[in-house]
């Protein structure tokens, strides 16, 4: 069921109770969690936070805590699975779910009490009607019983045969219809509005919103844009809404804001990774946007950068300096001169509207900077760090007074950007992106540099988008833009497993992903052991030895 009124059915309802937060391991969840924490703190609602990466974690956390806790809040996890079936909770346990993964499992939507969804029902989601997918078996039998009571016993026996046949036929049709509806409903996986934006709006309705919380919502939105989880139009819509909040809060500023001069500015940003914290040359070279438009992995592309810099009137020595240390004049003109030349170098749309957080006189961060920093913390940290530790670090990174953490993370993010670029360059040079008919695939080998980094969901997602776009831009095959991509990265070398990700073709404007179902069916068909307990089902973990067969099965399926 959907929670109708956030205030009475959730916030007031939980006052004085203890809740258990299960938070998915991604940026949106961390932002949503931070907003929720501040809301819970206002009402002194005791909470415990657990980090969830996969279904297995969710189950374990539930089992460990179910004795002591009655109320569970799930952020960005659990919406797409049948919670009641997976966890087998006792009657009185209640689950509040705020999940941006789609589609939401129908059992959660039609749960009467135990599962309560904090999202709003979406019109375009085409949720099957209750009666089309659920039917009370006993009820229908009772009906036929009462019917037959009215008539004579003798006729009943005769008609029973007929009726049973009719009934069975009806059942079969209903069943077919049900399967069809469910398939249509769950065919594509995609992302809906970021949970942090939902949370921020709830905070707003409770009159507890402030600039810090707004910033978290902005980060979550920017994350969705950077990872291509939502369409650009959707981004624009959400951004306008947040911009309105931003203006409103700017006027509402209180004394402490003046002291720390905390400001959120609405500004145009460039699709250049971390350029404010890097050198212009590196940022141009390692950003996905410029790399693809200018084919920077080629020798020609490399020259083109220098051409561009020359056109902009930016001396090479300056472009190799930290952006902050560049001449003031050049720095001021950087934005506009790049925009002027964007058409000449095929860099249209290099600008996008975004937000900047400024506090004090030395801290100034773009929303995208923070997203890259967070992802570097979460997914590019040394292997001996546990996810819980990194989750805490990421939470700290979002606190304003932890500048060193952000700065360290930004340094790490640069390494991520470089290594993404180099991997793509390598894949193209060695012609490792292989066309398998209905899709292309790329296998990251075990010995490959930084393979460990790519075995994480989001960096892998970035890699796959980068690889596919680069492949399309280089391919002579006209159909290249209609092909989806699968990437395989080693996951656990000891067990010999690898993680696969599938992304839709470049020509699709919508990021709806059909690989969830395709993976499931392929795994079913070839009867191999697969671990599909990611909440985003476009990832799957299989044994590397099964990979060739798995690709064959997929190819057959998609043909």
């Amino acid at each position, binding site marked *: 069921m959907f929670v109708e009124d956030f205030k009475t059915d959730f916030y007031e309802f939980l006052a004085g109770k203890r809740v258990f937060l299960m938070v998915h391991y991604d940026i949106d969840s961390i932002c949503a969690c931070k907003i929720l924490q501040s809301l819970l703190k206002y009402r*002194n609602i005791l909470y415990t936070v657990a980090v969830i990466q996969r279904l297995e974690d969710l189950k374990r956390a539930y089992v*460990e805590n179910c004795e002591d806790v009655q109320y569970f809040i799930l952020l960005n996890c659990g919406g797409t699975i049948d919670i009641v079936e997976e966890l087998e909770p006792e009657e009185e346990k209640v689950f509040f779910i705020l999940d941006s993964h789609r589609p939401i499992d129908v059992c959660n939507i039609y749960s009467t009490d135990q599962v309560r969804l904090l999202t709003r029902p979406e019109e375009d989601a085409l949720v099957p009607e209750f009666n089309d997918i659920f039917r009370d078996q006993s009820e229908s039998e009772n009906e036929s019983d009462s019917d037959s009571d009215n008539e004579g016993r003798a006729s009943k026996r005769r008609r029973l045969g007929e009726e049973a046949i009719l009934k069975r036929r009806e059942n079969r049709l209903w069943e077919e219809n049900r399967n069809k509806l469910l398939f249509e409903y769950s065919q594509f996986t995609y992302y809906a509005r970021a949970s942090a934006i939902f949370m921020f709006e709830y905070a707003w309705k409770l009159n507890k919103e402030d600039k810090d919380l707004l910033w978290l919502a902005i980060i979550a939105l920017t994350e969705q844009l950077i990872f291509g989880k939502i369409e650009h139009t959707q981004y624009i819509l959400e951004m306008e809404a947040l911009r309105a909040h931003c203006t409103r809060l700017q006027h509402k500023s209180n004394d402490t804001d003046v002291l720390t001069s905390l400001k959120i500015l609405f500004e145009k940003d460039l699709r250049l990774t971390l350029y404010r914290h890097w050198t212009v040359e590196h940022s141009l070279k390692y950003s996905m946007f410029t790399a693809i438009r200018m084919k920077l992995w080629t020798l020609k592309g490399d020259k083109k950068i220098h051409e561009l810099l020359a056109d902009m009137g930016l001396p090479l020595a300056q472009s190799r300096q930290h952006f902050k240390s560049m001449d003031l004049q050049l720095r001021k003109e950087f934005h506009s001169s790049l925009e002027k030349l964007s058409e000449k170098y095929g860099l249209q749309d290099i600008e996008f509207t975004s937000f900047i957080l400024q506090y004090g006189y030395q801290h100034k961060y773009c929303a995208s900077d923070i997203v890259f920093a967070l992802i570097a913390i979460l997914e590019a940290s040394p292997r001996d760090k546990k996810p819980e530790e990194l989750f805490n670090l990421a939470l700290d990174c979002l606190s304003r007074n932890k500048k060193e953490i952000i700065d360290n993370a930004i340094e790490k993010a640069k390494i991520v950007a470089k290594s993404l670029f180099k991997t793509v360059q390598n894949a193209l040079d060695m012609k490792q992106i292989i066309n398998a008919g209905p899709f292309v695939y790329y296998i990251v080998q075990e010995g490959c540099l930084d393979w460990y980094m790519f075995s994480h969901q989001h960096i892998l997602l970035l890699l796959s988008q980068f690889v596919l776009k680069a492949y399309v831009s280089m391919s002579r095959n006209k159909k290249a833009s209609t092909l989806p991509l699968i990437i395989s990265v080693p996951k656990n070398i000891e067990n010999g497993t690898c993680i696969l990700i599938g992304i839709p073709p470049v020509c699709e404007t919508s990021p709806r992903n059909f690989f969830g179902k395709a993976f499931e069916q392929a795994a079913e068909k070839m009867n191999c052991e697969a671990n599909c307990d990611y909440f985003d089902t476009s990832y799957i973990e299989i044994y590397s030895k099964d990979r060739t067969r798995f690709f064959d099965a997929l190819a057959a399926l998609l043909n």
Partner: protein
Amino acid sequence: MFAEKACSLIKELSRCEEGLPPYNIELVKEVCTEIKQLHEQNKEDGAIVANESEIAGNVNPLYPTLRIGSAAVKRNIRCLLAYHYNRLRTLRTMRWQFGSILPPDIKTNLSSDEIDWFSKYSSCLGKYMRSIGEDGLNLCLDLRPPKSLYIEVKCLIDYGKFELSDGTVLLLKKDSRHYLPRSECEELITQGVFHHIV
């Protein structure tokens, strides 16, 4: 040289800032023997000096020997007392910081008398704290006035189950975050189970 051993006891202590080195029973015994020997010698010399000065009215040649001997005894005693006294001081601070149960690796460093003293001190302190106000007051907690009644904490170790005073049970796992009443956390923070997040 006199009092060399006694001094090495003190050096042991000073090397170990804030912690306690193992109680060095052998060395303590040896120092005691040294004191006894010196004392016997001094007694003999003292008798001679006292007798002869009465008779002759001038200073006996043994007088400087006696003085050095007695200085050595005094020095030994001072070291020995300081050794024990400073250990007890550290032990007392430990009661306030670790609580009434000491970590086992610290406990092995104590002499049996020290363990005895610790438990007596501990029960004295406990009794006193219970007697304050109506239902006692834990003085070992942080004495600064709280900013809020609830605080957010991060668990630093796998602690297991922990029961709050109202009966709710928490599972404390490493790196999990909790929002709890401050009064429930304070002790676990001083004991290093929780880290307070501001």
